[in-house]
């Protein structure tokens, strides 16, 4: 490829783009780039200006390029927020390509519609769709159109490896290999069937000839895209299934990794912001007498829903903002208090009775089965709102000039961020360049566009690049929260303790739809209903989304049923899962790892919980010490079947991470509302688990189905809370029906 015009309109700061890091190996040389096979044509010509600008780089298809030094670059259409996806997706591509892992580099795909993956759309819109091979190209095309229309270049839902990895990265790697082999076959005048690839070389064993991929890169890009590239079977995997070291860890250990908040531009100014404490209110008046004359202050903006102070430095902006006394408009939300909200949930559920609400799933006749049951069990559970509390507070840098805009941030859906900026300014998406960086935590929070929109509005009101940073207080008080919820259950047991009816009604349903359901448990009659209770607070996906509530509700109630049946939680779940071999294997492994039957010291307890979510089956056993003033979680045993763990160490890291995230929620997590505003503001009143409270974690992985993979980032979380509260019950006989545990008196 020859030099092409850069699409970046902002002045280049060598420091900013991660391309500089990746570019080290690829700036000089000849490169090759590869697209997913089901696409109608090879998009190399269209994409190269964006991703293969280095001299001599050759894009083979949309997702692979090779340069003259034989460096293979995997182009990843997902963002890195700690889940290790850059590495695991590159592993999948490089394995199918038979690339030399030590010479594989990673490039985040640009925020451009051309880098929308139909596989992302497909996994988001129809995750369980099975189609005959003959229809795959058509279906792929449809999903590509849908995904493009919806700006789906999103990272979330634990979809990356199981969706993009399985359907795009592996296919692209295999296709690139076939194209390189076809090019080598022409060059050497031998049948393609006599060639193979190994360590980024093409080999002809008969003649002992070998040459690097780079030699065939340009010719490979001219080859037609293979229709159905042959994927490896697990016995031939070289990289998949191995604990490869993550690419991003060295730069995250010496301070050079760049996050959204690290954006730096010549002449950049800083904005501190304060939004109306009650969402929906506006700034009616503000007293800026002190602020306007403070050092460094350039502009004080009443943006309606928030106030912004723009200054030479962020601290100056914050100091000035702190002196502004503002009055806000009255809203309907002003009267809302947390206790009243739970009371409202209760009255709405009362009104619904046995028949109200929306039926989500129903089988058999719960009414009759419950009426005839030998034992009846009922319980109600509650969970509060939760904030995401990413360590990197929300921030965004924007620069609006000449009818165009550049935006820098760390976002889970770069294309949506780009569109949000364009819509805010009323300009064409093509006039917005969005630059994504590492995310200092995402957990769902960075799939929202609020910070992008605010920064763009501020930038529009100024003449320079502006970096807007939220204070921790703003970050805590202006989140899109995990909803608070109440859930009620009724179950009937027969004379042997077997569950014969399961009835549930709960407030809220967001996503995924199956979160409140228990299709894996053998219960003949069940009925599950929901009722929406809207509030003015903003909701958003929070790690594991609705599974975070329903995992706790369901697995607490199952434990109550076990107790009512006079059985232990493990044995009871075994009966409920009878016949489901894969499920049982996971449950058994967790129990076995924990030494379930071995005695524990006095005052200690073990609890088990089982939640399949995001395609991964997880069972956890918690060991809790209840001899002190508050619960001490000693150890968590995790057994998980993600189908196939592409990077087992990365997978284990996600389990450890989900446990810490889930334990924070279990022990402390609570956002409450008073007079319509969130009461918590920083880590003193919204505490996060610290190292001295972190339990030991042991992870056991089962590779139960290499064809259909599950996610890693979220499924470790839902079983955590109920495993802990079930352990507390085992130790003390006290059933915890409301989180967090900090509200419970254990004296």
């Amino acid at each position: 490829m020859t030099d092409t015009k850069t699409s970046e309109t902002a002045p280049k700061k060598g420091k900013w783009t991660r391309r500089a890091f990746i570019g080290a190996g690829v700036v000089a040389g000849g490169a090759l780039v590869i697209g997913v096979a089901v696409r109608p044509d090879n998009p190399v010509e269209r994409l190269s200006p964006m991703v293969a600008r280095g001299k001599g780089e050759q894009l083979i298809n949309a997702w692979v390029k090779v340069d003259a030094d034989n460096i293979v670059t995997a182009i990843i259409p997902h963002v890195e927020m700690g889940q290790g996806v850059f590495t695991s997706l590159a592993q999948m591509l490089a394995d199918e390509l038979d690339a030399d892992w030590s010479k594989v580099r990673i490039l985040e795909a640009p925020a451009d519609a051309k880098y929308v993956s139909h596989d992302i759309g497909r996994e988001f819109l129809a995750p369980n769709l099975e189609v005959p091979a003959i229809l795959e190209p058509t279906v792929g095309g449809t999903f590509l159109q849908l995904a493009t229309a919806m700006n789906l270049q999103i990272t979330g839902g634990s979809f990356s490896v199981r969706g993009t990895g399985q359907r795009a990265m592996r296919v692209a790697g295999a296709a690139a290999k076939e194209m390189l082999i076809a090019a080598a076959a022409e060059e050497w005048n031998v049948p393609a069937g006599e060639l193979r690839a190994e360590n980024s070389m093409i080999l002809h064993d008969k003649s002992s000839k070998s040459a690097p991929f780079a030699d065939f890169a340009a010719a490979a890009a001219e080859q037609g895209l293979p229709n159905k590239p042959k994927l490896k079977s697990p016995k031939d995997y070289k990289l998949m299934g191995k604990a490869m070291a993550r690419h991003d860890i060295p730069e995250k250990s010496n301070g050079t990794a760049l996050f959204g908040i690290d954006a730096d531009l010549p002449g950049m100014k800083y904005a501190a912001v304060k939004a109306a404490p009650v969402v929906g209110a506006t700034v009616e008046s503000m007293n800026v007498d002190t602020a306007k004359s403070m050092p460094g202050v350039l502009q004080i903006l009443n943006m309606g829903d928030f106030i912004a102070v723009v200054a030479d430095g962020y601290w100056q902006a914050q100091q000035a903002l702190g002196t502004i006394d503002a009055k806000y408009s009255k809203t309907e939300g002003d009267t809302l208090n947390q206790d009243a909200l739970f009371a409202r949930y209760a009255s709405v559920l009362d009104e619904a009775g046995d028949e109200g609400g929306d039926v989500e799933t129903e089988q058999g006749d719960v009414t009759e089965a419950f009426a005839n049951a030998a034992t009846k069990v009922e319980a109600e559970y509650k969970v509060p709102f939760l904030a995401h509390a990413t360590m990197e507070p929300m921030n965004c840098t924007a620069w609006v000039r000449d009818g165009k805009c550049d935006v820098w941030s760390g976002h889970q859906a770069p294309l949506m961020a780009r569109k949000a900026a364009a819509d805010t300014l009323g300009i064409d998406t093509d006039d917005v360049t969005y630059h994504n960086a590492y995310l200092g935590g995402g957990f769902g929070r960075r799939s929202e566009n609020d910070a992008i929109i605010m920064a763009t509005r501020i930038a529009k009101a100024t003449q320079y690049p502006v970096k807007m940073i939220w204070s921790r207080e703003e970050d805590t008080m202006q989140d899109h929260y995990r909803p608070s919820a109440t859930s009620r259950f009724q179950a009937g047991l027969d004379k042997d303790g077997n569950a014969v009816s399961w009835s549930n009604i709960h407030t809220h349903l967001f996503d995924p739809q199956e979160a409140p359901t228990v299709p894996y448990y053998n219960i003949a009659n069940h009925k599950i209903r929901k009722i929406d209770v809207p509030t003015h607070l903003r909701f958003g996906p929070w790690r594991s989304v609705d599974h975070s509530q329903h995992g706790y509700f369901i697995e607490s109630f199952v434990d109550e049923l076990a107790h009512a049946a006079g059985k232990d939680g493990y044995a009871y779940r075994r009966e409920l899962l009878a016949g489901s071999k894969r499920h049982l294997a996971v449950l058994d492994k967790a129990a076995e790892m924990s030494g379930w039957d071995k005695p524990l010291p006095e005052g200690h307890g073990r609890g088990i919980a089982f939640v399949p979510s995001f395609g991964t089956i997880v069972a956890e056993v918690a060991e809790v010490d209840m001899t002190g003033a508050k619960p001490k979680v000693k150890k968590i045993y995790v057994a998980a079947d993600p189908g196939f763990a592409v990077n087992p160490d990365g997978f284990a890291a996600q389990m450890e991470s989900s446990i810490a995230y889930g334990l924070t929620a279990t022990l402390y997590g609570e956002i409450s509302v008073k007079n319509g505003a969130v009461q918590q503001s920083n880590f003193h009143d919204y505490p996060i688990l610290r190292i001295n409270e972190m339990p030991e974690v042991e992870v056991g992985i089962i590779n139960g189905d290499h064809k259909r993979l599950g996610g890693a980032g979220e499924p470790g979380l839902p079983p955590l809370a109920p495993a802990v509260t079930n352990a507390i019950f085992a130790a003390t006989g006290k059933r915890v029906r409301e989180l967090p545990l900090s509200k419970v008196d254990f004296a």
Partner: protein
Amino acid sequence: MITLNVNGEAKEVDVDPATPILWVVRENLKMTGTKFGCGVALCGACTVHLDGKPVRSCSTPVSEADGKAITTIEGLAEEDGTFSKVQQAWVDQQVAQCGYCQSGQIMSATALLKNNPNPTDEQIDAAMAGNICRCGTYVRIRKAIKTAAGMSSETQEA
């Protein structure tokens, strides 16, 4: 003008002496490895060393650095980029996830090991409890600190 000693180099900055070290380092000196997390010394993301002792730079005015040596995450590696023992242990144990808090974690761990080359589990937990990691990499932080401690004893033997 204030003259600062940052990672062994003298730096002149024109700032209000009350400005927290964090913002001087990030904005004036363009060293962005030190992170803003909470602004009130509750999370440790902004940890730097003042004369070898860990401080929360978000809540320490730059005036307090007068006559003292500031060390940031950028100052830990050798000049040729070779990682310090603690940094290498962080890589070996695959600690970082999102990575945002890790500069602060590594600064706290470095200070701990300097004073106590072979800390017990309790001492590790006590020294590191001021640093929040939302990704929950704590299990690996413990391992990495032990790895780094082991590395120092091996070096002594060699």
